[in-house]
């Protein structure tokens, strides 16, 4: 669905703003909200651009910067930290060769941190897009990353 089709799906009322931003962001390969997107949304909902930008930059799951095809969100909340979450985050940084918030050179992954993912019983955990992964170890991360890369190539 393109932006215009997404907008038409919703009544032009303010309460649909978060849904619209989610949908537009998900529809794009670079998983972000461009300036044109924000302008289009503000026109459609008849609210000021700054209001839209205010919302888009308040919530951590929206991005106004281009991102990779898959978003890796590593849980950095205390229960995961206590179970070695930092080691996992460092390992991902090393494996992917990026810092937090950066995208791999092949545009495959963007590495982000997340507050509690709610699977503390299988900490440390991360999410790739909508998929949850728990009980992480460096080996398990290798396996998961390889699987994603193979899926792309295969």
């Amino acid at each position, binding site marked *: 669905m393109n932006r215009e089709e997404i907008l038409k799906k919703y009544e032009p*009322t*303010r*309460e*649909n*703003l*978060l*849904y619209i*931003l*989610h949908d537009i962001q998900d529809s794009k390969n670079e998983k972000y909200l461009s300036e044109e997107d924000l302008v289009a949304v503000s026109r459609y909902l008849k609210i000021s651009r700054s209001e839209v930008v*205010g*919302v888009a930059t*308040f*919530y*951590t*799951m*929206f991005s106004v910067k281009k991102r990779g095809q898959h978003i890796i969100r590593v849980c950095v*909340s*205390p*229960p*995961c*930290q*206590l*179970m070695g979450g930092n080691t996992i985050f460092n390992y991902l940084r090393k494996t992917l060769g990026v810092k937090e918030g950066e995208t791999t050179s092949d545009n495959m992954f963007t590495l982000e941190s*997340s*507050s*509690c*993912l*709610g*699977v*503390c*019983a*299988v*900490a440390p*955990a991360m*999410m790739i897009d*909508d998929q*949850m*992964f*728990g*009980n992480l170890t460096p080996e398990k991360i290798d396996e998961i990353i390889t699987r994603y890369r193979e899926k792309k190539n295969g």
Partner: protein
Amino acid sequence: MAKIYNLLLCAGASCISSGGYSFRDKLVEELKKHNIENMVNIVETGCVGICELGPVVIVYPDGVFYKKLKPEDAKDIVEEHLLKGRVVGRLLYKEKDSEKIVQQASQIPFFQKQLKIVLRNCGIINPESLEEYIGKDGYSALAKVLTEMKPEDVIKEIKDSGLRGRGGAGFPTGLKWELVRNSKGGEKYVICNADEGDPGAFMDRSVLEGDPFSVIEAMTIAGYAVGAKQGYIYVRAEYPLAIKRLRSAIKKAYEENLLGKNIFGQNFDFDLEIRVGAGAFVCGEETALMHSVEGQRGTPSPKPPFPADRGLFGKPTLINNVETYANVCQIILKGSKWFSSIGTEKSKGTKVFALAGAINNTGLVEVPMGTTLKEMVYEIGGGLPNDKKFKAAQIGGPSGGCIPEEYIDTPLDYESVKKLGTIIGSGGLIVMSEDTCMVDLAKYFLEFTQDESCGKCPSCRIGTKKMLEILNRISKGRAKVEELDLLIHLGEQISKTALCGLGQTAPNPVLSTLKYFKDEYLEHINEKKCRAGVCFKKKK
């Protein structure tokens, strides 16, 4: 052909994240290979609770419980158990000390101590099947309410039950309903707070994933009781599976006229919509949540006005959390007397706790209020891994505090826990062994609240930052002793002056560790020593 076996496969987020679906796919493949897929019914249920052992399957009619399943185990379960009737011994649960093998789920100590009201259907029914929910008395409560009870009767029943809010503050639920009912202002709203952001708490996710109809039914009852025609469930975007199952359940409820116009043929309409967050912890605060539903930035507003007077879109609004709603139908069906007979004098019913951290049986447990911390840790939780010594438990997440070893016999109820300077909160219970540094723990939680502070009020925005700076200096051995007083002073000021509940409670993890583990703070400052061996490590 009649189905001979029912395989209950846990499809909660924890089991899926440890490979539950890879196992399922292999299982289906094996069933097909042996041409017996018609004999076996695979039911994907919500969370069974014992996430540590995931992925898990329970095979009925025998009730055999298999744990930690890998895709290659599917072959044995099919060829041995299903075809030859021989239980696969190596996949059974073994008791830790006695090495006793346990076949039935009901015999595992983890389940034996529990009393399930909120989680009654989780792990038992297919969460997306309305028929299965109805088979478990689903929608009998709504039928009773709409045909036999006046709104005032419903509110009286909830009030008499003694149910209190399970989201953190513990406000009497029935009283809240009454305030909204009596509030003047025409249109009213009912909201379910499913923005479960407390690190360490995941019971609301499990209820939504495992029994979404129970929340939908309860919200409909609430709508009838307070006089609202429109409801919203605000779910955090980090819970895609919960959102998916909730969507499917709402759709089915509409198809069967359990939502919409003239429900049960009565003169009562109720519509329900989902609103999805976008990653902001502060939206768990009720005024912030309502702003987010309205499509605004999710920042809190001062109270009063309370939501019961002026809430969503400026109208009177009832807002309860998932676990609170999940109690409602059972109270209506079994009566307030039954409910209030469970728990302690002032804390009625059960509470779901999420066990995490240094504990053998991580997962979700539901116990009567007043169960002691000791029972939770040793009898249900199975003790600490590698027989480590219990040091403390953090309860109530970033808004709560810790309970040290000397108070391990404390009953877990609103009042007893409050006396120790912490809160039941949403029920996150993180167990810590001697390997955890309490300064480090306080720092983790403060880093969290600092990071999640919405920035609207200075005491939270700047105050938590200043506290964190001191903590960082302590953990590096660069602080002065006087700074401990400053830390307490800052904490107390933030508690008094922050705009919302989350800000007001943000200093709790620091204040509570300082109260019980001041010697550890002093060791860091005076001796540059960390007894847990966590701080002062040289960076590699």
